[in-house]
């Protein structure tokens, strides 16, 4: 492929690509994102290729391995164009039927389409599925339409037109002004206005400047950035190149975690293709602007998502944060002005340039414009990636898009903002989600993790879990974080083990305050948040653990006992057979009793007891009833009617 040397050449080439594509010819798009691949998309893709070849349909039907559309819960996801029929949880065994029925017969395979679990209504087309219907997919929309490894696919949906526009029609100041006007705030956590960050770097006197993509996504349960890098790497490159032009940088870095092999692979392929086409390198599109991008693979430290630690790691040193008394957009990587934005922030840039700040600001709230991608995980029916306008309520995300809580359980809390965020209870469900509202409520936007918790979740244990994560992931440099978190984790562990004492809450609060006030970086300063927000909304749970040795969610192992209700036990032996420690005494027609000495509280009996009996229960904070006397344990069953 020859380089494209001007915006005109790009447009001519784009027309050529589009002329070769018949929008009405059948195309099978199969999600090849990490989630669907883990559910077997690789075999489905192979099966489609084999089936299409064996029937001699290669000339008429194209297959496409695409990025992640977000509905990971029901993967592998297959979409058949031009009808946009969406099939879920497709297996290789379904492939032959899809080819005969849908591709040849133009009929829908009913058993593979979405069925609403509450209304039993079917949805054939992607946009009719409630999970998608209530979203505003400005960014994620492209993922299912393109093969991320094909730059021509990206061009066919208008790719690199924003870059061409910037280079041929806009000055760097125009670009900064447009991004400022859009009020694009950083999607990585802090929510700092990107335009102001860019402006600071642009105005800095140093000649050498850097632009950096932060793709060190490390929050437990978050995978927005992975899906974008895997699914649409060129959009990130295009955004980054526009940013480089705006601030006057000729060198960019993508810091991506090594644990994302597919993202690394796709982004490297994208860079190679962009260099061949002339979207990167010398004299881009004949504008005289030079820009190159390097990929740096992170060694798997959560703290490297913190901007100064990331820059230290890029410099080849251990990824430890450094104090930011001079902002990194003025003095960053190798002490040069450096604009670091998160993947999703960069992905928004081409859209803002192409469609304008006014288009962008029509979505969102006063202080938070545009859309935000969340990864919806935990106790939720529809696990996956959702893109919604800022300001949507938590309730809409959880119930309309997420489909509510599985198993008829009650919602308890939603954790946003990753380990440094907080847990919000039911009374906040009608809150509009944006940067400021979440902070006001004691949580934060973070990069977009959203973990749903139901009534079985112990909030003290949640705080302990996140503190454990943070003590592990802290760099260990400053005392308030390293030592403070060590003590906080110890106290929280004691509380969940029934060893809490009076004064623990106050000591935790004191340690939190010192970390917030005196820790070196944002990770340390926000590390107490999981504790503080759970204390704010679930103080009674802390008190129950400490004062009554009771876990209200019946989750902390050390504080619960399992008991078989003699009134309900039908002596069916199911639990007794499954108990791994042979702790259940009883036999056929003899009511079962748990030997508390032998019981390891694994919960197998609780799971095994048929729900129609529901005889095994958890007890916390009260004594276990004495076992009924042996002579009363025999069940006299009525003879079965003949």
């Amino acid at each position, binding site marked *: 492929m020859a380089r494209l040397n001007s915006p005109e050449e790009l447009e001519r080439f784009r027309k050529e690509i589009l002329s070769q594509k018949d929008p009405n010819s059948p195309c099978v798009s199969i999600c090849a994102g990490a989630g669907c691949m883990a559910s077997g998309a690789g075999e489905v893709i192979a099966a489609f290729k084999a089936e299409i070849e064996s029937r001699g349909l290669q000339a008429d039907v194209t297959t496409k391995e695409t990025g992640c559309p977000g509905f990971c819960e029901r993967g592998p996801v297959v979409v058949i164009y031009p009808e946009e029929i969406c099939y879920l949880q497709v297996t290789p065994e379904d492939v032959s039927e899809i080819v005969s029925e849908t591709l040849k017969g133009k009929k829908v395979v009913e058993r593979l389409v979405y069925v609403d679990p509450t209304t039993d209504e079917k949805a054939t087309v992607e946009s009719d599925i409630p999970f998608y219907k209530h979203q505003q997919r400005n960014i994620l929309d492209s993922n299912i339409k393109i093969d991320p490894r094909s730059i021509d696919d990206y061009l066919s949906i208008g790719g690199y037109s924003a870059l061409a526009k910037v280079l041929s029609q806009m000055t760097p100041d125009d670009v900064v002004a447009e991004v400022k006007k859009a009020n694009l705030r950083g999607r990585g956590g802090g929510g700092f206005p990107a335009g102001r960050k860019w402006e600071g770097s642009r105005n800095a006197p140093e000649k050498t400047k850097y632009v950096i993509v932060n793709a060190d996504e490390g929050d437990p349960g978050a995978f927005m950035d992975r899906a974008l890098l895997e699914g649409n790497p060129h959009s990130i490159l295009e955004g980054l190149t526009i940013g480089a032009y705006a601030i006057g940088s000729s060198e960019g870095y993508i810091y991506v975690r090594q644990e994302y092999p597919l993202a690394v692979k796709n982004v490297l392929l994208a860079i190679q293709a962009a260099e061949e086409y002339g979207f990167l390198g010398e004299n881009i599109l004949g504008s005289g602007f030079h820009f190159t991008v390097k990929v740096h693979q992170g060694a798997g430290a959560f703290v490297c998502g913190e901007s100064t630690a990331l820059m230290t790691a890029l410099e080849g040193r251990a990824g430890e944060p450094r104090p930011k008394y001079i902002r990194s957009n003025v003095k960053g990587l190798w002490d040069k002005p450096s604009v670091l934005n998160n993947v999703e922030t960069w992905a928004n840039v081409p859209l803002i340039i192409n469609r304008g700040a006014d288009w962008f600001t029509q979505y969102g709230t006063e202080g938070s414009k545009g859309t935000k991608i969340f990864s919806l995980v935990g106790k939720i029916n529809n696990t996956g990636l959702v893109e919604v306008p800022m300001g949507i309520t938590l309730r809409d995300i959880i119930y309309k898009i997420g489909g509510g809580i599985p198993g008829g359980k009650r919602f308890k809390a939603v954790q946003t903002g990753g380990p440094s965020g907080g847990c919000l209870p039911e009374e906040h469900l009608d809150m509009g989600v944006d940067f400021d509202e979440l902070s006001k409520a004691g949580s934060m936007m973070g990069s977009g993790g959203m973990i749903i918790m139901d009534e079985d979740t112990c909030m003290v244990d949640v705080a302990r879990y996140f503190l454990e994560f943070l003590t592990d992931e802290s760099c260990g*440099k400053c*005392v308030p974080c390293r030592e403070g978190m060590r003590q906080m984790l110890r106290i929280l562990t004691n509380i969940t083990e029934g060893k809490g004492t009076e004064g623990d809450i106050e000591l935790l609060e004191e340690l939190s305050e*010192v970390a917030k006030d*005196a820790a070196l970086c944002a990770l340390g300063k926000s590390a107490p948040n999981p504790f503080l927000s759970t204390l704010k909304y679930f103080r009674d749970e802390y008190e129950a653990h400490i004062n009554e040795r009771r876990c209200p969610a019946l989750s902390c192992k050390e504080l619960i006992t399992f008991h078989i209700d003699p009134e309900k036990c039908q002596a069916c032996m199911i639990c007794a057979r499954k108990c791994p420690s042979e702790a259940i005494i009883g036999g056929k027609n003899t009511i079962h009793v748990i030997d508390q000495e032998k019981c390891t509280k694994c919960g197998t009996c609780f799971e095994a007891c048929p729900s129609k009996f529901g005889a095994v229960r958890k007890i916390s904070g009260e004594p276990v009833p004495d076992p009924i006397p042996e002579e009363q344990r025999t069940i006299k069953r009525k003879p079965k009617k003949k």
Partner: protein
Amino acid sequence: MSEINLQIDGKDVEATEGMTVLEAAQSVGIEIPTLCHHEKLEPYGACRICTVEVESGGWTKLVASCLYPVEKDLIVRTRSEKVDRIRKMILELLLAHAPDAWELERLAKVYGADKDRFEKEASFCIHCGLCVRYCAEVKGEHAVGFVDRGTRREICFIPEVAAKVCRDCKECFPLCPTSALQAAFVLAEAMMGPRPETGSVK
């Protein structure tokens, strides 16, 4: 270098651009406690005991004085209820590691820190990094470094390097505020094997 006027604990102080608040305070004899600071080394900002309150443009914030650059008209308070509370907690957290470290004991008296507030830890090291940084920055050797991260972080001599350079140097030993450094060295020495009869180790 231009002159910068600021106020520390109510005292007008003249400093030069590029100085830190700590240096400006020291220049007029105001003491700010430090544990990880050393004049021959780059400011590190890890122990946070030098935290002070600064007021600039109507905003009050808590900063590490060993790193914070002086600004025109900055108002610095080296002691306040909040600053003292932070220092007391930091000392208590460190005393769990090194209850007998002289400097910690001295400061504990000043800030009313209770050395038994937290359960004692196995390692004496308070991670001030003086040995690590001195070896790297002054000696250019990297014979001692940090390994691992978070609460598992510890100092460690690299036997291959230590065997060649440490026996004749040991300049880091007097820098250590605790006994952790010696302990780490003894461990490294044990790994180096028996000391040869003559000359240096290969």
